[in-house]
């Protein structure tokens, strides 16, 4: 189980591959699920230039570990990984990677979804968007579906 706050850009595919390669129980793993969140160039009707992402050092890591522990006790997971960016984020860069491993696909996918939904709802991060000539704090996270 690993949770990291990253101040620098990272390659989510390479990170997930590297983490998976380090897992012991290869023969027990039948399924891996991942979610990657990236910075779009549009949000709520406005063109976004870049973003500043703030967190609560100490509490954020603790909360992400709590989410992962909750997922590990609710589903028979083999492991899970959460990497989350902070600082200045450019269009297309990865904001978050959530990855889960299990024997069976339903457990891996349900747990991955649970982690990202809980993270969106409760993990202490705050986004400030830089638009053309102005800035704004993102008010709240949306349901995750296009309108």
């Amino acid at each position: 189980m690993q949770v990291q706050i990253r101040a620098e850009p990272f390659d989510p595919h390479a990170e997930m591959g590297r983490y998976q390669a380090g897992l012991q129980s290869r023969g027990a793993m039948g399924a891996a699920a991942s979610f990657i969140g990236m910075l779009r160039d549009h949000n709520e009707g406005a063109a976004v230039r870049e973003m500043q992402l703030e967190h609560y050092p100490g509490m954020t890591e603790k909360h992400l570990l709590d989410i992962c522990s909750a997922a590990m006790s609710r589903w028979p997971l083999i492991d899970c990984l959460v990497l989350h960016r902070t600082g200045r984020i450019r269009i297309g860069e990865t904001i978050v990677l959530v990855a889960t491993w299990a024997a069976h696909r339903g457990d891996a996918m349900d747990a991955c979804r649970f982690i990202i939904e809980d993270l969106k709802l409760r993990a202490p991060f705050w986004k400030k968007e830089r638009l053309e000539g102005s800035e704004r704090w993102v008010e709240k996270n949306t349901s995750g579906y296009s309108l």
Partner: protein
Amino acid sequence: MAITVKFFARLREEVGRADDVVAFEPGLSVTDVWRSATHGRAMPESLLVAVNMAYARGDVELRDGDEVAFFPPVTGG
């Protein structure tokens, strides 16, 4: 002794600082700390509170040395 107070994101900008210290006294609640640190500013309806890095309610009674954080709805991921 004292209570450490933290403000994040929009709230940090509105209150004008990231950290503060409030004198501890027995019976002090989270709401008391908010009033003291913000000089009576109204508590935003959507305000989130953490005590010692765990989510808490406004009526929680504090202990000396506690860290109280105030922040707006979270927008990570």
